[in-house]
């Protein structure tokens, strides 16, 4: 009993056989589809147009009959009543207790409604994440986040409290004040985007003369918002900078907190299959992918979210199942390498498919380079051009030529593309506190 208690937030669900998990998912999928059909005019319309009634879903094989949803639909309906969510809403407006919105990095922000029950659900999902990453009631958790309209680490805050951790909200403090507060209170854990984890370490070293790995007590860091914690070279930089374990989590405002890395760090993230149903579809063909190792686009259902249901949502995230179970004993399947790209980010340059994460993986692997970089894809006449801006670390300027040679060489090997590389003075490229925008495709309108 103690062994279970020490590892799992819910040993029943987290060790359920795959067969039973599928049965649970079908039962919950039928329930959420019926809920949406009966309570959301948008979903009722969508399903009626497809000639589908909730009772038509009998088993796993019927799930693909249910029409998919996507962000564009959410943007479209939120122009209508009830304001500001539109008729995707499946509860009376007076039951909505929280507003959040997406960051708007891919277009007009989507507004998200949650009831109090939904909010409990959000923090419950985060409890699975934090418990699996070793958070316990002995932790003092600092949250250096702006506590605003973005969901980001809000649910992480509530989940940490639910676990019994002592939570320090680092809301309006600036970066240096946050670092000093973390040091003063001997905080043991914090949550931030990978960009900010590296940025804080940089500020600690260069502005405060503090070495986070030696002078602070951080043991674990939970990352979200960007893929960095699943990119081995970026993860290594963060872990070395802080002398702490770095764990990834992937979630989304319109979906929920659907995946997490555990303390085994299996090279991927568990999908919380008791609360979410993840399907993978072929990028070109749309065929269902169930076998490990094959990349495709994620279609996801939040099985218990009621105010604004998220059913068969085409997330555009590119993922693949891992081919081995995790040593932690959880039966929730692992997505290998986290989200390996976005269907709308993977772009053809000079006829070659390029994922921005591949550039990050290389740039962060070269010693002598700073953490920041920027990629600009443009057209020079009829030919695609990739400009990569990097910073050389202070004291490494004499090695610039050799550093850039290694960078160019590795980029060609890993991405099959040639780059123009510019070395910029350390500290001159933009710094970000939340989600970084390092990849700019000027060939696209607004890119």
């Amino acid at each position: 009993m103690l062994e279970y208690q020490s590892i799992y937030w819910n040993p029943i669900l987290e060790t359920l056989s795959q067969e039973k998990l599928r049965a649970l998912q079908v039962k919950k999928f039928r329930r959420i589809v019926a809920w949406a059909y009966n309570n959301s005019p948008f979903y009722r319309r969508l399903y009626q147009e497809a000639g589908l009634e909730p009772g038509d879903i009998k088993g796993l094989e019927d799930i693909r009959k249910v029409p998919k949803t996507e962000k564009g639909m959410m943007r479209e309906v939120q122009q209508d009543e009830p304001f500001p969510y539109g008729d995707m809403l499946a509860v009376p407006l007076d039951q909505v207790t929280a507003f959040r919105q997406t960051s708007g990095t891919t277009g007009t922000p989507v507004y998200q409604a949650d009831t109090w029950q939904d909010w409990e659900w959000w923090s419950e999902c985060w409890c699975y994440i934090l418990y699996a990453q070793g958070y316990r009631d002995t932790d003092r958790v600092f949250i250096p986040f702006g506590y605003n309209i973005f969901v980001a680490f809000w649910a992480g805050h509530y989940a940490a409290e639910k676990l019994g951790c002592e939570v320090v909200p680092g809301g309006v403090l600036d970066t240096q004040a946050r670092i000093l507060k973390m040091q003063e209170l001997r905080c043991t854990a914090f949550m931030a985007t990978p960009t900010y984890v590296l940025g804080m370490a940089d500020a600690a070293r260069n502005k405060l003369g503090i070495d986070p790995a030696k002078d602070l007590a951080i043991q674990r860091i939970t990352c979200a918002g960007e893929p960095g914690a699943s990119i081995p070279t970026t993860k290594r930089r963060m872990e070395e900078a802080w002398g702490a374990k770095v764990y990834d989590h992937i979630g989304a405002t319109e979906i929920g907190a659907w995946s997490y890395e555990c303390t085994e760090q299996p090279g991927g993230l568990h999908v919380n299959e008791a609360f979410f149903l993840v399907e993978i579809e072929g990028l070109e063909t749309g065929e269902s992918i169930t076998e490990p190792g094959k990349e495709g686009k994620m279609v996801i259902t939040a099985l218990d979210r009621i105010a604004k249901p998220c059913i068969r949502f085409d997330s555009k995230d590119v993922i693949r199942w891992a081919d081995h179970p995790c040593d932690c004993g959880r039966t929730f399947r692992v997505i290998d390498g986290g989200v390996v790209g976005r269907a709308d980010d993977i772009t053809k340059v000079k006829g070659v498919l390029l994922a921005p994460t591949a550039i990050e993986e290389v740039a962060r692997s070269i010693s002598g380079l700073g953490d920041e970089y920027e990629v600009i894809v443009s057209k020079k006449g009829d030919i695609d051009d990739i400009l990569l801006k990097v910073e050389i670390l202070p004291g490494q300027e004499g090695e610039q030529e050799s550093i850039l040679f290694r960078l160019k060489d590795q980029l060609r090997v890993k991405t099959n593309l040639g780059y123009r590389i510019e070395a910029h003075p350390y500290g001159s490229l933009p710094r970000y506190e939340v989600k970084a925008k390092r990849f700019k495709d000027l060939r696209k309108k607004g890119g």
Partner: protein
Amino acid sequence: MVEWKIEEIDELIQRMRQLAEELKGKAGEIQAVERNLDRILANIKMLELNISDVKELV
């Protein structure tokens, strides 16, 4: 192998739900009772997601 007393736990959860709903019905216009019960019911739902939903599969 640990044996979980799922049926028993679920029974108690359902009694809690019944009690909370009954109390909500009697709250009348007392917001202090009604709104606190909304929160209690949301927490009971989390117990159901963790236990009751899976009881026939364990």
